[in-house]
C-alpha cells in the first residue's frame, strides 16, 4: 500500500469515527435522566463518582502538600512566605484540580466504563437488550454519560478543598507560616468568577470530553479481548491528551490577554 493511500484511509477512518461518535453523543444526550431512570443514574454516580473519591482525595492531599512545600522554598527566598495560601489556592483552582482530577478520572472511571460497556458488547448483552426492545443508549449509555458529566465537577471541588487542606498542613502546621496570612492572602487574591468559576468550567468541559471518549470507545470497539484492551488504552490516552490540549485552549481563552 502506498503511503498516500495509507494516509488517505487513515484520515477517512478518523473522520468516520469522529462522525459516528458525534451522532452517538447526540442520540445518547436526547435521553435526559428521568424519574424511572434515576436509580440507574444514581448507581452510576456511585460507581463513577463515589468510587473515584479515594484516589482523588489522596492525590489532592499530596499535590496540595507538594505545592506548599515547593512554594514555601521559593517564596521564603523573597520573604513572601505569607503569600503561600494564595499560591496554593490559585494553582489548585485554576489548573491542578481540574486537570489532575480529569487525568485520574480518565485512568480510573474512564477505563472502567470502556471495559464494562465493551464486555457487555462482547457478550451480546447490548444486542439482547436491543432485542428486548430496550435502547442501550437510554438504558446503558445515557446514565453513564450523565453520571460522568456531573461527577467530574464534584470531584474537582473535593480535590481543591483537600489540596488546600494539604497545603495548610505543610505550610502552617509544619513550616510555620502564619495562619492568618495564609487564609487572608487566599481570600484577598482569589476572585470567585475568574478563578473558581473558570476552574469549574474547565472541569465541566473535561467531564464531558473524557466521559464521551470512554463510553464511545466501549460502545464502538471490536468485541474481542484484544478489542477491549485496545479500546481501554485508547480511552486513557485520548482522554488524557484531550484534557491537556483543551486545558491550554481554555486557559488561553479564560486568562489570556489578547
Amino acid at each position, binding site marked *: 500500500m502506498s503511503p498516500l493511500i495509507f494516509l488517505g484511509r487513515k484520515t477517512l477512518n478518523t473522520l468516520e469515527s469522529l462522525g459516528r461518535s458525534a451522532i452517538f453523543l447526540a*442520540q445518547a444526550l436526547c435521553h435526559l435522566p428521568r424519574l424511572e431512570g434515576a436509580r440507574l443514574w444514581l448507581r452510576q454516580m456511585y460507581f463513577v463518582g463515589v468510587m473515584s473519591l479515594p484516589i482523588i482525595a489522596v492525590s489532592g492531599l499530596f499535590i496540595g502538600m507538594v505545592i506548599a512545600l515547593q512554594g514555601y522554598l521559593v517564596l521564603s527566598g523573597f520573604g513572601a512566605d505569607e503569600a503561600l495560601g494564595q499560591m496554593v489556592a490559585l494553582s489548585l483552582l485554576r489548573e491542578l484540580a481540574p486537570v489532575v482530577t480529569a487525568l485520574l478520572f480518565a485512568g480510573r472511571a474512564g477505563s472502567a466504563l470502556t471495559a464494562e460497556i465493551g464486555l*457487555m458488547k462482547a*457478550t*451480546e*448483552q447490548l*444486542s*439482547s*437488550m*436491543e*432485542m*428486548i*426492545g*430496550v*435502547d442501550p443508549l437510554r438504558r446503558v449509555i445515557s446514565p453513564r454519560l450523565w453520571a460522568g458529566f456531573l461527577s467530574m465537577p464534584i470531584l474537582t471541588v473535593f480535590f481543591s478543598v483537600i489540596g488546600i487542606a494539604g497545603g495548610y498542613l505543610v505550610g502552617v502546621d509544619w513550616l510555620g507560616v502564619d495562619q492568618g496570612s495564609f487564609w487572608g492572602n487566599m481570600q484577598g487574591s482569589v476572585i470567585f468568577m475568574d478563578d473558581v468559576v473558570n476552574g469549574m468550567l474547565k472541569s465541566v468541559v473535561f467531564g464531558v470530553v473524557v466521559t464521551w471518549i470512554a463510553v464511545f470507545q466501549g460502545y464502538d470497539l471490536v468485541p474481542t479481548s484484544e478489542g477491549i484492551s485496545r479500546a481501554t488504552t485508547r480511552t486513557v490516552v485520548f482522554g488524557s491528551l484531550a484534557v491537556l490540549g483543551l486545558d491550554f485552549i481554555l486557559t488561553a481563552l479564560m486568562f489570556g490577554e489578547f
Partner: protein
Amino acid sequence: MSDSTLVSVENLHFSRAGRPIFSGVDLEIPKGRITAIMGPSGTGKTTLLKLIAGQLTPDSGSVHVGEDNVHRLSRQALFRMRRRMGMLFQSGALFSDLSVFENVAFPIRVHTDLPEHMIRDLVLIKLQAVGLRGARDLMPAELSGGMTRRVALARAIALDPDLIMYDEPFVGQDPISMGVLVTLIRRLNSAFNMTAIVVSHDIKETLSIADHVYVIADGRVMASGSPASLREAQDPRVSQFIQGKPDGPVPFHYPSKNFYEDILAPSEVS
C-alpha cells in the same frame, strides 16, 4: 406478502468487510409455524436473524415483519417492533449484573406496569417451563452453558412474543434438557401460536419439530421444503448436509493448496 406470512425476505444482499454473505436470498416465514434455517457453518444463519431483527442493515433487498419494512423504520419504531419479538442468543447473553430471576423479569418490568406479585408469578411460570425455577437466585456466572441458554429462553418468552428466533438452542444441552427444549419449542408454537425461526445444526432435533426448512449455502437458499422432502432430496449438497456425510460436494476443509505439496514444501518458518 400474504396474510399467512409473518416475515418476508426479498432479494437480500449483505456483505461484511467486502466479503459477500448473502447474494439474493428470498424466503418467507409463515405465521404460527416453526421454520428451520440450516446450512454449513459460516453461511450467515445468525447474520440472517440479525437482519430480520434490524440489528444489521442489508446492502440491498428488504425484510418485512408483518406490515413493517424493518430497515425503513425509525429507531423508536424499530424498538417498538422488537417488543413483539424474542431472540435466544447462541451465548445466552444474560445480563451479568442481574440474577436469574431479574433477568427473566427484565422485559416484564420495562414494558409493563404489572404489580410485583404478578411479575413474580410470571417469572416463576417461565422458569418452571425451562426447569430452572430452583435456580432463580443464582447469578449468570454460576450457571453452566446449557442452563444459561435455558434462562435466556425463559427471558425471550417472558412477554409471549409473536415471533421467536432461536439461535442454536440445542448446543451444550444434555440429552434430558435437549428433549425438554424440543418439546417446549413445539408446545410454545402450538399452544400460543407463536411463530418460530430455529437456526440449528442439530439436524435430527430440528427436523423433528420444524414445519418448513430452508437450507442456506453460498449466499443463497439452496433448498427448501418440508423435513420429509429434504430427507429425500436428490441434490447431493442437500443430502450431504442433511445426512452429515464428510465426503461430498460441500468441502470440510477451508480452501487451501494440496496437503502433500504443503507438507513437503520448504519450511516457511525461518
